[in-house]
């Protein structure tokens, strides 16, 4: 999980470096190329699935659904009202899990960083639990919390809480002693230190991990629905796969991609604004 998170950061930094400081000319050019690439992929997809009026198929529809079937399925899914319910269910699981994880992660992170003995005692245990593949306990969570939203919230929470916890813990441990000293000398008490130094410092560490956490929370919520559920995007996806409705599967994958993209973009904007005091805000 940590490797994936790091990879994400590395990728973002690479993209940032490449896109930073380019002229408007370049931006336009890049966008033209992007649209061309998307258009070409689409044409290839359509061509290989009986489109473009040629009626030629490189593979049967059950392997790769055609664009027209996919979008027809998507609009049927939307019209039936199921899409709204599924999306709401999945997003709520992800959101509740994420929020609870942030609250718990911050509380534990700050607490254990201050009560050093507890932190030192629990650190190896946390690391061990953190290295456990989360999905391994998904079936158990279904037994504990049922097929409803609760088991998915628990799974998301369990995945994200460690990311937040470790970042908070590091944030507190890496508090700049000079800043603490400066505020104390000016007469600041514990409350002032918390508000002026601790909180902003910890928040900057959490925000650095937030984009990964948001992407994870959606993925884990959907995966949790694979394991056992009665609603949600993942549930619908499993059903469609079970009856070999590849067009529906494709429709749902596109839907997931769109939701994930929007969520990550929004998080990025928020992060950029809140961390605008940084010389090189990541991303």
């Amino acid at each position, binding site marked *: 999980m940590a490797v994936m998170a790091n990879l994400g950061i590395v990728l973002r930094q690479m993209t940032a470096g490449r896109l930073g400081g380019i002229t408007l000319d370049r931006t336009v050019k890049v966008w033209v190329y992007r649209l061309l690439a998307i258009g070409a992929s689409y044409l290839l997809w359509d061509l290989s699935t009986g489109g473009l009026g040629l009626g030629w198929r490189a593979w049967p529809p059950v392997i790769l659904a055609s664009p027209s079937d996919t979008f027809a399925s998507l609009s049927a899914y939307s019209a039936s009202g199921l899409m709204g319910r599924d999306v709401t269910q999945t997003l709520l699981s992800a959101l509740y899990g994420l929020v609870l994880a942030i609250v718990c992660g911050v509380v534990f992170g700050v607490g254990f960083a201050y009560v050093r003995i507890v932190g030192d005692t629990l650190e190896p245990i946390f690391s061990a639990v953190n290295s456990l593949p989360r999905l391994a306990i998904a079936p158990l969570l279904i037994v504990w919390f049922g097929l409803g939203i609760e088991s998915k919230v628990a799974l998301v929470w369990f995945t994200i809480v460690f990311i937040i916890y470790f970042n908070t813990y590091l944030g507190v441990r890496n508090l700049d002693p000079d800043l603490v000293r400066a505020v104390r000398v000016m007469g*600041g008490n514990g409350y002032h230190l918390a508000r002026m130094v601790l909180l*902003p410092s910890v928040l900057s560490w959490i925000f650095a991990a937030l984009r990964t956490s948001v992407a994870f929370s959606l993925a884990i919520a959907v995966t949790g629905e694979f394991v056992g559920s009665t609603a949600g995007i993942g549930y619908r996806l499993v059903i469609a796969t079970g009856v070999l409705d590849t067009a529906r599967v494709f429709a749902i994958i596109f839907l997931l991609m769109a939701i994930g993209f929007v969520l990550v973009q929004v998080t990025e904007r928020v992060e950029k604004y809140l961390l605008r005091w940084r010389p090189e805000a990541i991303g």
Partner: protein
Amino acid sequence: MLDAGYHEWHNVLNSRIERRLEVARLRTDHFSLRYGSVEAFSNINLEAQSGEFVAIVGPSGCGKSSFLNALAGLISPEAAHVEGNVFLDDVQRIKLTDWHGRLGYVFQQDALLPWRTVLQNVEIGLEIKGAPAAQRREQAQELVKLVGLEGFEHFFPYKLSGGMRRRVSLIRTLAYDPEIVFMDEPFGGLDAHTRMILQREVTEIWQRNRRTVIFVTHDLGEAIVMAQRVLVFSHRPASVVGDYEVPFPYPRDPITLQTMDEFAQLHLKIWRTLANEFRVEEAQSVLV
């Protein structure tokens, strides 16, 4: 020609100086600090009058910074053993909380909060004192103007140059009007030109609003140019081996002052004491 307004202003200023004469008198009595078996400084008896500008020079690593930190009560009792007494206006002070915001401390690092703009950084002290937002803003704005940082009020620290950051750090300390100000190599790491400008700025500000200043530096020239009195600390464990009056009148201009014979003579006189300490330190390090 002096008009009534000037007299009024002058009276206000005088009464302010008089008031200051009664406060912020600093005295240490056999003040010593020991980290385990290592003595940082021992038996320091220092007396700074109200509104006096005292500079401390000494070989690097002699315990000058430790002395300030111990005075401010920033050294935790677990980390070191402190002996002797610190008196502010004849009242004993040891812990940081004893100073109750009467102390200002300009550190070697500017220690600006990176997530706060220039104005917000300057406001910290007033915020802690609970001043209303409008008043905070107004005072901070005034100080920003005083050091010529208009237009940078809403900049985050990372966008400022080293000299600008020091200025912000300085006015942040002045903002909450401490009676006594410690400065620990406040111009370290700056280029010679910026240093000279800041030396003059700080001296001018001190003249206009006299606070008791304890100024630690390794630069003897800087000490003479700015301070009324220069104390020479010995090599570790530090003790006071020289106490020199600097008789030059204010306002002083660092550049012209340094070209004067009197400056050179005083510089040489203090330097002999100081150089002796460097020699002792060198000899010790060779022996070790």
